[in-house]
Each structure stands twice: as structure tokens, then as C-alpha cells.
């Protein structure tokens, strides 16, 4: 059975919406295998001393849900999500600290898992409802011109190109972009679209409602500066500019380039950034750094370490660039 980690990143909401979120998670009809609360507060507290939280922890124990409370490094929620993404679970259910899932949400999302699914989301509703009558496409190209498809309780499951806020995703397939600023604007759009680009389906399903209260107090993105949003928006636009292409970044040695060069024809519509244009025709690594902010998601050595790799370097490149994905 696939193991599910529930990940909640929190800041400034110890005594407002976070308890509602934890209560909702504890009362799911399908329980996660583990719950991790990533505490990003400026002055983190030991919540074991708080009456309400003592009971939360006791109930988690009584229900045999493994849980951890982790203090984070204040780098932004993309770093937190990437940590959850890399913890060895099959699926991660990301839940915001002001987004309250109805009791059936994880069950519904989990039941919708299929072999080609990369992520599954439900409706993310903010009362009072404003978007009851619309028919969005869920295509990334329309992201600026239509409301998000998840802002309504739709009637039929639909495939989309990006997801929003809270969803269940296949872990360890695609990395969060750690080049974003601390505000991590567009992080979930970039992440979910990355799964889509790797050939996985993104699904939105009906009757899995999460109530997003949009708590004006606290939040991981509090104290954000305008330039952070601009910086992240630029990275997002840059990546969007390569949609339909496979971005390849060879920030590695000469030998690695030579090995990769034999695979180039297997990669659909590649655009290559690298260090040795005499081996693989490429644009510069400096340009990739400027465009995408962070190149770790393409670092073949980091990926092999993350995968506990024992097969060949050649096949590691194949896995990274999904050359023979059964779903492509």
C-alpha cells in the first residue's frame, strides 16, 4: 500500500487556523501514515506545553499516526515542501495552515490514484463563494485569464496542467524550484507543472473540498517584499517560456557530458545548457542560472545520491530526463 506523508508548513497561526487544520487531519476517514508540522515561526514554541496541542498529540498517538514537529530554517515553504518531497514516502499530501480539508478529502484524493497520476487536487474554496459559474480549462497558458479551476466544486474529474494550494502528489519525481525567493511565489504552480511536463497526469476531482480561510494573520509568506514576488514571477515566466521542451542542464564534468551525448536523441525536444559545447551543443550554465534561479533539480550527482543509485550513469540520465517513461 502506498505510504502517504501529510505535510503542514506553519507560521504565525499557532492559535488561529492551525488547530483547525490539525483537527481536520486527525479526523480524516483515511489517515496519513505520517504527519509532519514544519514550524517556520520566528519565535517557535514547544507546543507540548499547550493544552490543545497536548490533546492533538495524544489523539495522533491514539490513532497510531506517526508524527513529528520540525523547526525549519526560514528559507521559505519551497524548501519545506522539498524536504517533504525527499523523505521517501510514495505520496505527499500538502496542506496549508489555513486550509481546512473536509473529512473525506484524503480518502477521495487517494482513491483517485492511478499509475499515470502525478498529483490529485480537489476544490479549494474560500467562503463566501465567488466563482460558482465558470468553466476554466486548467491549462497553464490560461493561468492569467481565468480563475483557478480548483476555486469551485466541479462536477466531473478533469485533467489539468497545474494545481493550487493543497493537493496529493507523487513524491520524489520532480523537485521544487529552490531558486525562488523566501516568498516562494508560484512554487506550487511550477512544481505541479513540472510533474505534468514529466508526463504525469494532474487531476482535479469533485467532492473533495478544502476550505481555504486565507487567514490574514501569519502565514509562510508574511513579511514578503515586492521584489521577491517580481524575482519569482520572472523565474516562473522564464520556465514557462520553455514549455513543450525538455530543459537539460549539464552542470557537471566532461566525462558526464560525453555519457549524456549518447542519449541526446532519446530526449524529446531538448534545450541544453552545459559546460562543454564541443561535446554537446549547448547554451551556458550562467544563462541557465540566470533563467531558472536554481539548478539543483538537474544536478545528476545530487539526484543519484537522492535515489541511492547503483545503476549506470547513463541510466541515471535516462531517469532524470524521463527518456523511457512508460507514461510518456
Amino acid at each position: 500500500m502506498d505510504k502517504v506523508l501529510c505535510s503542514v508548513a506553519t507560521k504565525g497561526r499557532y492559535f488561529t487556523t492551525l488547530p483547525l487544520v490539525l483537527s481536520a487531519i486527525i479526523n480524516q476517514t483515511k489517515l496519513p501514515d505520517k504527519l509532519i508540522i514544519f514550524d517556520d515561526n520566528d519565535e517557535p514554541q514547544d507546543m507540548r506545553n499547550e493544552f490543545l496541542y497536548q490533546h492533538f498529540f495524544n489523539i495522533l498517538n491514539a490513532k497510531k499516526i506517526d508524527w513529528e514537529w520540525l523547526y525549519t530554517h526560514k528559507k521559505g515553504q519551497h524548501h519545506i515542501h522539498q524536504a517533504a518531497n525527499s523523505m521517501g514516502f510514495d505520496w505527499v499530501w500538502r496542506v496549508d495552515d489555513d486550509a481546512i480539508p473536509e473529512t473525506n478529502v484524503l480518502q477521495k484524493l487517494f482513491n483517485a490514484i492511478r499509475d499515470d497520476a502525478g498529483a490529485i487536487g480537489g476544490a479549494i474554496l474560500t467562503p463566501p463563494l465567488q466563482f460558482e459559474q465558470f468553466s476554466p480549462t486548467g491549462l497553464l497558458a490560461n493561468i492569467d485569464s481565468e480563475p483557478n479551476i480548483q476555486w469551485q466544486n466541479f462536477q466531473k474529474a478533469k485533467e489539468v496542467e497545474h494545481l493550487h494550494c493543497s493537493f496529493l502528489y507523487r513524491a520524489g519525481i520532480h523537485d521544487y524550484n529552490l531558486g525562488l525567493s523566501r516568498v516562494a511565489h508560484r512554487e506550487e504552480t511550477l512544481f505541479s507543472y513540472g510533474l505534468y511536463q514529466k508526463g504525469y497526469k494532474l487531476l482535479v476531482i469533485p467532492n473533495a473540498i478544502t476550505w481555504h480561510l486565507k487567514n490574514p494573520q501569519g502565514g509562510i509568506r508574511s513579511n514578503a517584499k515586492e521584489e521577491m514576488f517580481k524575482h519569482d514571477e520572472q523565474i516562473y515566466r522564464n520556465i514557462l517560456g520553455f514549455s513543450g521542451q525538455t530543459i537539460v542542464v549539464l552542470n557537471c564534468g566532461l566525462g558526464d557530458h560525453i555519457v549524456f551525448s549518447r542519449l541526446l536523441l532519446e530526449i524529446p525536444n531538448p534545450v541544453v545548457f552545459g559546460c562543454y559545447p564541443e561535446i554537446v551543443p549547448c547554451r551556458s550554465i550562467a544563462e541557465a542560472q540566470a533563467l531558472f534561479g536554481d539548478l539543483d533539480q538537474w544536478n545528476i550527482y545530487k539526484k543519484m545520491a537522492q535515489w541511492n543509485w547503483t545503476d549506470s550513469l547513463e541510466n541515471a540520465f535516462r531517469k532524470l530526463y524521463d527518456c523511457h517513461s512508460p507514461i510518456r
Partner: protein
Amino acid sequence: MIVIHPFAKPLQNDGVNPKNYPYWQELIALINEPIVQVGVDGEQQLVSDFRKGLSIQELKQLLAECQTWIAVDSFFQHLAWSVEKPGIVLWSVSDPNIFGHTENINLLKDRSYLAKNQFLWWDYTPYNSEAFVKPEEVVYHLTSLQNTTI
């Protein structure tokens, strides 16, 4: 003619690369063939014919002309693989199952010498001359490779 590529890339901490074979002098003395060494400035010259700083095209040309080659785990073994010229790779701490090619003869003394983490810079791995096969074993495999390629 045999081509040798004796040295892996220098480490950033100026230490000895744990992939560098310790018995080149002894090995060269056992080979009764003309030997061309390839490498870069600053590397120890082991034979009279040391060609430094060759381009990728020049190295490919040399590979086309040579009978076979011997190298440590470096870019050179990948380059030879890319032009389908089999040779001998002398391994120690890096894993031939990951970084090698089955078309070559991969001489690893024992997997117990492999670095636990294969994906860090080699600066963090101590040098151990015991991790390498002896020159006589290399010559034995060189002879068998020469016999199969004739």
C-alpha cells in the same frame, strides 16, 4: 601503440586524487609496446611521448590509431566508449557499475574499497594505494585484450 591516461582531474583541495593509479612506472616497464601518454600541463611525465592538452578531436584521432588504451576513471574512458574503442580502466574508490562501461575491461581489486558515497567530490575520500590491482594483473588483461582485438 598503447595510449595511457594516467591521472584523474586534480582535486580542489590539492590532495592526491584517490582514483590515481600508484604503479604506473612499474606497469609501463612491463609493457613492450610504444606508449603515448595523454594529459595536461602539470602532470607527471611517465613516457617520452607525452602529448599535452590535445583537443577532443585530436584525442579521438589518437584513439582511432591506437591498439588500445589504459586509463584511470576519468573522462578518457567515456570518450573511448563514445568512439567504441575498448580499453582497460583501473578502478579503486569509484564504482565501475555506475561510472564504467561494460565494453571495457574494468579492473577493480575489491568492492570493499569503494567509497561509501559515490556522489561527493573525491576530495573527501582518502587516498589508498592498496585499493588498486597490481601491474602484473593489468598486463595479463592487456595481453588478452590485444589477442582479442588482433
